[in-house]
C-alpha cells in the first residue's frame, strides 16, 4: 500500500530558482502562489508577499527595540494573544501593534493620561499613522495547506517500546484485513483465529486493541454485524461519561469549544447555544459558570439540546435540561431550555428552532458531523441548516483521522494506528487516579467505534472520521471561514492537561488557527471554529 507522492515538494538535490507552488481550489481557480519552501516548514507565505513580510519583520524589530525596560518584550508578548503563527504576515501585524507601547490598552503599565517623554531618539518610532491597522487575519482555507497534502493524507504512526513483539500481531491483522478486502474469506478466517493466539501473548494496550480489531474483523467475515449503537442511548451516554473521566479528550473538546463560544459571546446580552449532541450536557455547566463570572455579568442564556430518541420511557433530554436549569439558577444566570429529539441532524429544519431577535447564536457539534457522512446529502443539508440559523460561531470537534476512505484496507490500517495510539494513552494515564471500571468502560466506548469502522458499511457505518484538512475544505466550500483559536486558549488547554490529564504525553498543538490534542506526536482530536463568510 505504498503511495508515492508524485507532486514534488522540495527536492533535496536541485536548487529551484522558482519555488512557487500554485494551489488550486476545487473549482480549478488558481489561488495564490504559496512559497513551497515555506509551506513544508509550516508557514503560509505567498512569494508575492515576501518583500512586504520582510519589511514587517524590520518594523517589528524596531518596535521591540523601542520597548521600555520595565515593560519588557517577553511580558508584552505573553499578554498579547497570538493567532495562527503559520500566517506570518498577520502574526507580524498583531505583534507590531501588540508590542507597540502606545497600543496595549489591556495591560497598561503607563497611565493613558500622562505624557511620557521617550527621548528624542524614540520620537522616530512610527506610531499608528505609519503602521497600517492590523489586517483581518487571512481566513481563506485554501491558503492553509499545499493541495497535495489533502490528496495524500499523512499516516502518523507512533510505536510504543519498539513493539517488536507486537509487529507480528499487527502484520497478521493487516494480512487478515487484506484477505477480507480481496474477499478471500477462508484465508481471512484462518488469520483472524491466529490473531487471537498472538494477542494473548501481548500485554496492555496492544492486546486490547488487537482483540477489538479481531472481533470486528470476525463480525465482518461472518456477517454478524453489530446492532446499531444508537439503539441504547443510555448505555452510550454511560460509556461516554466514563471516557470523559478517564482521559482528557472530551474535557479538551468542551474546554476549547467553550472558550471560542465565550469569546464570540463577548458583549452580547442575549445568547442561544444549540448543541447538536446533547448527551449528558456536561459541556455546559462550565460555560454557564464562565458567563456568570464575566465582567458585566451573564447574558440571558438559552440552550437547545438535540439528541436521539430514548428507548426507555424517560425523557432524557428534558431531565438534563432541568439539571442545567438548577445549576443556572444557583449562579444567577437567566436560563431557558428546549430539548429536540431527532434520529439524525439531517431531519431538522430551521423552522423548528425559535430564532429570536437580538439573540447571538452559537452552534456546537462534538463528534457529530462525521456521522452525517453516512448518508448522501446529509452533511450538505445540515450545513445549510447551520447557515439558516445564522450563528455567530460554529464550534466543531472531530477525531483527527481519516477513517472514511473508499478502500477497506486503508480504513483498517488508519484506524488500527489511531486506536492503538488512543489505547496507549489510556494505558499511561491515571494510575491510581482513574478507576479500573472507568478504564474498561472507556475501552468499550472506543471498541464500539472500532467495530463500526471495521465491521459496518453503508448507512450503518457512522464513524466516518475525516481529518481537519478535509473538514476545512468542506466548511470553506459551504461558505464558512475560520475563527482562529489563539495562544490564550492554547495556554489554558495546556494548563488543563497538566491538572487533569493524569498521565504524561498529552500535547496541545496549534494548527493553522485550530487546536489539536494528541498523545506525544500524534494529534487525535481537533477543535475548530467557524463563522459565515
Amino acid at each position: 500500500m505504498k503511495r508515492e507522492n508524485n507532486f514534488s515538494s522540495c527536492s533535496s538535490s536541485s536548487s529551484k530558482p522558482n519555488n512557487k507552488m500554485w494551489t488550486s481550489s476545487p473549482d480549478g481557480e488558481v489561488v495564490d502562489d504559496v512559497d513551497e519552501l515555506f509551506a513544508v516548514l509550516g508557514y503560509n507565505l505567498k512569494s508575492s508577499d515576501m518583500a512586504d513580510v520582510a519589511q514587517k519583520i524590520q518594523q517589528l524589530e524596531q518596535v521591540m527595540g523601542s520597548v521600555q525596560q520595565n515593560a519588557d518584550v517577553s511580558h508584552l508578548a505573553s499578554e498579547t494573544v497570538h493567532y495562527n503563527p503559520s500566517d506570518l504576515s498577520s502574526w507580524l501585524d498583531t505583534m507590531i501593534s501588540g508590542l507597540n507601547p502606545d497600543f496595549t490598552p489591556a495591560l497598561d503599565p503607563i497611565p493613558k493620561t500622562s505624557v511620557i517623554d521617550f527621548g528624542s531618539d524614540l520620537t522616530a518610532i512610527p506610531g499608528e499613522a505609519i503602521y497600517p491597522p492590523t489586517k483581518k487575519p487571512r481566513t481563506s482555507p485554501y491558503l492553509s495547506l499545499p493541495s497535495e497534502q489533502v490528496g495524500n493524507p499523512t499516516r502518523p504512526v507512533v510505536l510504543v517500546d519498539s513493539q517488536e513483539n507486537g509487529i507480528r500481531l499487527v502484520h497478521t491483522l493487516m494480512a487478515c484485513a487484506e484477505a477480507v478486502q480481496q474477499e478471500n474469506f477462508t484465508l481471512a478466517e484462518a488469520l483472524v483465529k491466529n490473531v487471537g493466539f498472538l494477542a494473548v501473548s501481548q500485554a496492555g494496550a496492544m492486546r486490547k486493541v488487537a482483540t477489538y480489531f479481531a472481533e470486528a474483523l470476525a463480525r465482518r467475515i461472518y456477517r454478524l454485524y453489530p446492532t446499531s449503537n444508537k439503539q441504547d442511548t443510555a448505555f452510550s451516554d454511560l460509556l461516554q461519561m466514563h471516557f470523559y473521566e478517564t482521559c482528557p479528550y472530551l474535557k479538551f473538546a468542551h474546554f476549547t469549544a467553550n472558550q471560542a463560544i465565550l469569546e464570540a459571546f463577548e458583549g452580547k446580552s442575549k445568547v442561544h447555544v444549540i448543541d447538536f449532541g446533547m448527551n449528558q450536557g456536561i459541556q455546559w455547566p462550565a460555560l454557564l459558570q464562565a458567563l456568570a463570572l464575566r465582567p458585566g455579568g451573564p447574558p440571558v442564556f438559552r440552550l437547545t439540546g438535540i439528541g436521539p430518541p430514548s428507548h426507555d420511557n424517560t425523557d432524557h433530554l428534558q431531565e438534563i435540561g432541568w439539571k442545567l436549569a438548577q445549576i443556572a439558577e444557583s449562579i444567577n444566570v437567566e436560563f431557558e431550555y428546549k430539548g429536540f429529539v431527532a434520529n439524525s441532524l439531517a431531519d431538522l429544519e430551521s423552522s423548528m428552532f425559535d430564532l429570536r431577535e437580538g439573540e447571538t447564536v452559537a452552534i456546537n457539534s462534538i463528534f457529530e458531523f462525521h456521522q452525517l457522512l453516512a448518508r448522501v446529502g446529509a452533511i450538505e443539508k445540515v450545513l445549510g441548516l447551520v447557515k439558516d440559523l445564522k450563528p455567530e460561531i460554529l464550534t466543531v470537534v472531530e477525531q483527527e483521522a481519516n477513517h472514511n476512505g473508499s478502500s477497506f484496507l486503508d480504513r483498517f490500517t488508519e484506524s488500527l494506528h489511531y486506536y492503538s495510539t488512543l489505547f496507549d494513552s489510556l494505558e499511561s494515564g491515571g494510575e491510581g487516579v482513574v478507576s479500573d471500571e472507568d478504564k474498561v468502560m472507556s475501552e468499550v466506548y472506543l471498541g464500539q467505534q472500532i467495530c463500526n469502522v471495521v465491521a459496518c458499511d453503508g448507512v450503518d457505518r457512522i464513524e466516518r472520521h475525516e481529518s481537519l484538512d478535509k473538514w476545512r475544505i468542506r466548511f470553506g466550500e459551504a461558505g464558512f471561514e475560520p475563527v482562529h483559536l489563539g495562544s490564550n486558549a492554547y495556554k489554558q488547554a495546556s494548563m488543563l492537561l497538566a491538572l487533569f490529564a493524569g498521565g504524561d504525553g498529552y500535547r496541545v498543538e496549534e494548527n493553522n488557527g485550530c487546536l489539536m490534542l494528541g498523545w506525544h506526536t500524534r494529534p487525535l482530536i481537533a477543535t475548530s471554529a467557524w463563522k459565515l463568510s
Partner: protein
Amino acid sequence: MAGGNEVNANESKRVVPLNTWILISNFKLAYNMLRRPDGTFNRDLNEFLDRKVPANANPVDGVYSFDVLDRATSLINRVYLSSTENETQWGISELEKPLSTTEIVPVIVFFHGGSFVHSSANSAIYDTFCRRLVNTCKAAVVSVNYRRSPEHRYPCAYDDGWAALKWVKSISWLKSGKDVSKVHVYLAGDSSGGNIAHHVAVRAAEEGVEVLGNILLHPLFGGEERTESEKKLDGKYFVKIQDRDWYWRAYLPEGEDRDHPACNVFGSRSKSIEGLVYFPKSLVVVAGLDLLQDWQLGYVEGLKKSGHEVKLLYLEKATIGFYFLPNNDHFHCLMDEMKRFIHSSNCEYATT
C-alpha cells in the same frame, strides 16, 4: 552590540536569500519574546509558535517516518527511512528485517538544534531537514527528541542522547551489511545538537560503543572569554552574545559559568580526550558569519591536538541556519561533504 539594528538588518539581508532571511529573522524575533530577563522561559508560547508535523508512514519524496516512544522515559525518537530502499507494506515499516543484507546503510542519529531550549524532533524545520538527509546521504536517520532546558538542565540532553544511541545500536531492523552484524552509526547535530553529539561521542568512546563519525553543524561551544569573532560579529547576523549567554545560563547547572566542561570542551576544566582511541572522526562545519566560529575553530584545533581525525568545512559566507532551505550553495556543499564523510568509511569497513 556591533552596528545598529537597521544596519545589521541590511547587512544580513545581503548575504542570504530573502526567504532564508525571513525565516531566520522570524525565529530570532519570536525567540526574543520568549526569553525572560530573569532566566525563565515562556514554554507554552514557544510550543504554540513552533510549527510541528506528525510522522508519516506514507512515503513522501521517497522518505517515510514513524515515531518510537520509550514508555519508561517518555522519550520519542523519530525514525526516517528510504521507501525506495525499504519497501513499506500497509504503511508501516517491515520491522522484522534489517535495513540491508547486501550493503551498509548508515544510520545518522541526529540531535536537532535550538540552543538546548527551542525546537523538537517533530518541528517542521527539523523534520524537513532529516528527510533531506535520508535522500542525500542515503542513510536512515533517527532524530532524538531530547529533554530541553530550562526545565531540564545539563546533563539531561546528554543522558537522553546516550540513551538514544544505545537504543539505536540495539535495534535489529537498523542493522545492515553483508553479515548484518551491527548498526552503522554516525552522530550529527546542529547548534546545541552538535554539542550533544560531541559529548555523546565522548561517552561512547569511554564505554566502548562504536560510533563511526561525528558531524557537527555550527555546534554550540563557548566560554567565559569573549573571542574576536564574538566581539566582531555580535548582533550582525541574527545572533547576539547576550542571547548565547542566556541559553548557557538556562542549560548549565545553576551558578555555573561558561567554562563548565559542557560548554568549553577544551578548556581547563575539561577532561582530556587524548587517550580516547575510539573517539570517532569528525566533520565540523563552521559558518563564516557565525559569531561562535572562534570557539568552533578552537574545537577543531583541540581535536587535532588530542590526536583525533577532523575535517573542517569552513563556509565563509554562510550564516547560521543556512541549511534550513536548499536555496543556496552552502546547503549543497554541506550535503556533498556529509555524503562523502559518511560513505568514505563504508568503503573501508566493507572490505573487512
